[in-house]
């Protein structure tokens, strides 16, 4: 392996919101790369480039003029690593570990509700989220953390939505258990 983690000059996690589509969840700069690419503007393009369509081959890395991006999907999210071109082809597996480590590291503060400011949802958005959750859970079981990844919601917000759906008898808890996660399906 000739991979050197120091070649990494930035990382970003592009999340996916069921209503708005891709969005930049967070970025981490090891060196300044703001002049190379505006991530806020390009988040959706990167997401589409790596995950576009439903089937077929998907790229693992895309080489640009001054940098390349290696992206690793995790559920609906996409972790992008920005690097200088230098014999990356043999290093994909190593980079995958790095990406997952970064994602894990960045997930910890999120559990405490400190990493991302979640906007207070307006009633209309909450109603749309509820409609989508009922559709998504039709005929399948999913855990609360899995459902949360479909929306820009904190733990407390997804629980509030699920509790309201449960009270309205739209969804119910299932007997499935995986750790402490509660699984849901439609009534």
């Amino acid at each position: 392996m000739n991979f050197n983690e120091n070649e990494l000059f930035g990382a970003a996690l592009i999340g996916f919101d069921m209503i708005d589509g891709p969005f930049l969840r967070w970025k981490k700069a090891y060196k300044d790369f703001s002049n190379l690419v505006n991530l806020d503007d390009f988040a959706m393009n990167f997401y589409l480039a790596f995950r576009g369509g439903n089937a077929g081959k998907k790229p693992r890395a895309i080489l640009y003029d001054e940098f390349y991006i290696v992206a690793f999907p995790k559920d609906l999210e996409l972790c992008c690593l920005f690097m200088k071109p230098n014999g990356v082809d043999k290093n994909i597996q190593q980079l995958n570990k790095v990406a997952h480590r970064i994602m894990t590291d960045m997930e910890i503060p999120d559990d405490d509700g400190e990493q991302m400011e979640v906007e207070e949802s307006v009633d209309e958005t909450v109603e749309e989220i509820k409609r989508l959750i009922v559709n998504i859970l039709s005929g399948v079981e999913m855990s609360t953390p899995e459902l949360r990844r479909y929306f820009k919601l904190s733990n407390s917000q997804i629980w509030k939505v699920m509790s309201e759906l449960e009270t309205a008898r739209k969804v119910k808890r299932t007997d499935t258990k995986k750790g402490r996660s509660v699984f849901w399906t439609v009534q």
Partner: protein
Amino acid sequence: MLSSELNKLVKVSIIGSPAVGKTSMLKLLSKNTIDRLYMPTHGFDLKTVKMDDFILKVWDMGGQNQYFRAYSRDSLLGTDLLFVVTDSSPRNVLNSRELISFAANFIDKECPIIGIANKQDLVKKDGRMEAKRVENILKVQTHGLTAIDPDHRVLLTDIIKNELKKIAVRRRLKDIEL
């Protein structure tokens, strides 16, 4: 490409809010296995389906706002047949009405818009609307469908075949005018 070949090409676009069953409808049409686990379409998915003498290029557009805002103008261009899919829930049907008004700006006036009142298997279970009610709200011809039910493929192909006949007539008339 020869004009005779071009005349056989038909662009079918499928639009609608997220998680209403657009991709399931495409899979139903292309005889693919329908997976009940939901995975959103990113951007759009394009499939080719042969039907009678026609070659359908079916565009399944991701329903998320960002995708629709960014790509609807370009991707709807040249559509011969537009499907607007709803999950038949009252709220979604109202949203779909707005979607129709928006999409109408980017398609030809003669392009038929067909409403699909999907998830009809759930109508009696959780207050979704029957196709006739959806049609009254959308004000476009609307058909009920359960896209996850392979038996409904015939229903969907019949709808399309019926529209293909009209498209063929319109194209012939245009050729004569030219």
